[in-house]
């Protein structure tokens, strides 16, 4: 077990090195073999502090905690909590750390998870902070690639959609700095290009383009994201770009037969439902791997038995 490299918190994909990520992949594989049930964290309590609504992330964390034999406390939105009465994030974290061994936090403001980690004495996992990062999603993404393709190195990636506000995209591109990807195409409308502060942390060249057709034939992994209405301050701007790209059967025909399509979900219209039946569509499989990966991450941070 890689306890010597134990990070106290996972706020960004950059907080993990390659060995740690591969260790998490291996442990996730073990849980799959065991049927995703282990009671090694019996007696531990994990707080799920979801200040922003979430369906799959919260449920998969909850499922992961329970399958490890631990229990959860927490909330699913700010409504009905002391936050509505004016309690600060810091005070909420101080309260939860007294009740739990780990805090999983989601919040609509950028940087909240890092701020929480500066207050907390128990490990913090960032389950999404504004448009900033969503590191556990990126571990699931590359685990899926690794499961299907057998490796991550050398593959050509095409990341499509909202690269400006997409926190899953930020974390995925950053986690790929721990590997050696082949070509990385970034396809987005001009208004939704990857932000400079994220691009500056990447250690591999990226090719920015607005033409999906030009790069599909050279893509091994097509990562599609939703253009998120909730991240736009101006609805007029959202209307201009909301249906910029659609992955349909025609697009799939342009892809290699062994290429794959991933999506962090939820999907709206950016992938035609007819694509779901093609062999390239792996996004529901990707979502199904969320529980075992999050079990491995929680176990890694809380240090369960081997």
């Amino acid at each position, binding site marked *: 077990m890689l306890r010597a490299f134990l990070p106290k918190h996972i706020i960004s994909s950059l907080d993990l090195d390659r060995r740690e990520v591969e260790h998490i992949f291996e442990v996730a594989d073990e849980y799959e073999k065991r049927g995703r049930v282990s009671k090694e964290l019996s007696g531990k309590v994990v707080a799920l502090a979801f200040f922003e609504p979430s369906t799959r992330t919260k449920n998969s964390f909850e499922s992961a905690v329970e399958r490890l034999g631990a229990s959860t406390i927490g909330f699913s939105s700010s409504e009905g909590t002391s936050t509505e009465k004016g309690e*600060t*994030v*810091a*005070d909420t974290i101080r309260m939860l750390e007294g009740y739990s061994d780990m805090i999983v936090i989601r*919040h*609509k*403001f*950028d*940087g*909240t998870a*890092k*701020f929480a980690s500066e*207050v907390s004495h128990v490990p913090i996992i960032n389950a999404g*902070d*504004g*448009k*900033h990062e969503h590191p556990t999603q990126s571990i699931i993404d590359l685990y899926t690639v690794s499961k299907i393709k057998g490796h991550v190195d050398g593959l050509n990636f095409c990341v499509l959609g909202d690269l400006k506000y997409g926190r899953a995209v930020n974390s995925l591109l950053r986690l790929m700095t721990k590997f050696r990807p082949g070509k990385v195409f970034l396809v987005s409308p001009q208004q939704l290009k990857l932000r*400079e*502060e*994220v691009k*500056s942390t990447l250690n591999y060249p990226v090719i920015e383009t607005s033409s999906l057709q030009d790069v599909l034939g050279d893509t091994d992994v097509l990562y599609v994201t939703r253009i998120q209405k909730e991240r736009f301050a101006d609805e007029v701007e959202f209307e201009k770009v909301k249906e910029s790209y659609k992955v349909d059967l025609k697009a799939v025909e342009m892809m290699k037969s062994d290429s794959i399509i991933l999506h962090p979900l939820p999907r709206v219209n950016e992938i035609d439902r007819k694509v779901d039946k093609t062999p390239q569509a792996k996004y529901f499989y990707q979502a199904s791997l969320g529980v075992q990966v999050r079990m491995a991450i929680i176990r890694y941070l809380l240090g369960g038995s081997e």
Partner: protein
Amino acid sequence: MSDKELLVTKINNGTVIDHIPAGRALAVLRVLGINGSEGYRVALVMNVESKKMGRKDIVKISGRTVDEKESNLITLIAPNATINIIKDYDVTRKMKMKIPSVIEGLLKCPNPSCITNNDPEAHTHFFTVSETPLLLKCSYCETIIDEIQVMKQVL
């Protein structure tokens, strides 16, 4: 005695900050947290001739010593300023300044969705990513600000 010296008398104890770019003396005072209500005797000379700079500002603060951390913060708006600590009318120390690696509290993050703009306990914390050109990164949301944005906030 030069025209410049005639404008303000020498100080007994305190700090003289010279070679401030013309027009930025008030910003230097803001960085130092001096607004006049503290009771220090402060002399400002603005837009005086300078061989090196063409025009420059000078600030003299009587009874107040500028420390190293403050002098480093001054580099954000006056990179070539010289800071002299005065005791009994003599210069006892010339501060060597460098752009600080971390700037806490002074600047506001321009990202309205940054936690530092939304939680009373979350104070700003910027890292210096580049000195020339000046680029600072918010340690929470990673928004990058440049010299123009720093100047807008401080001036």
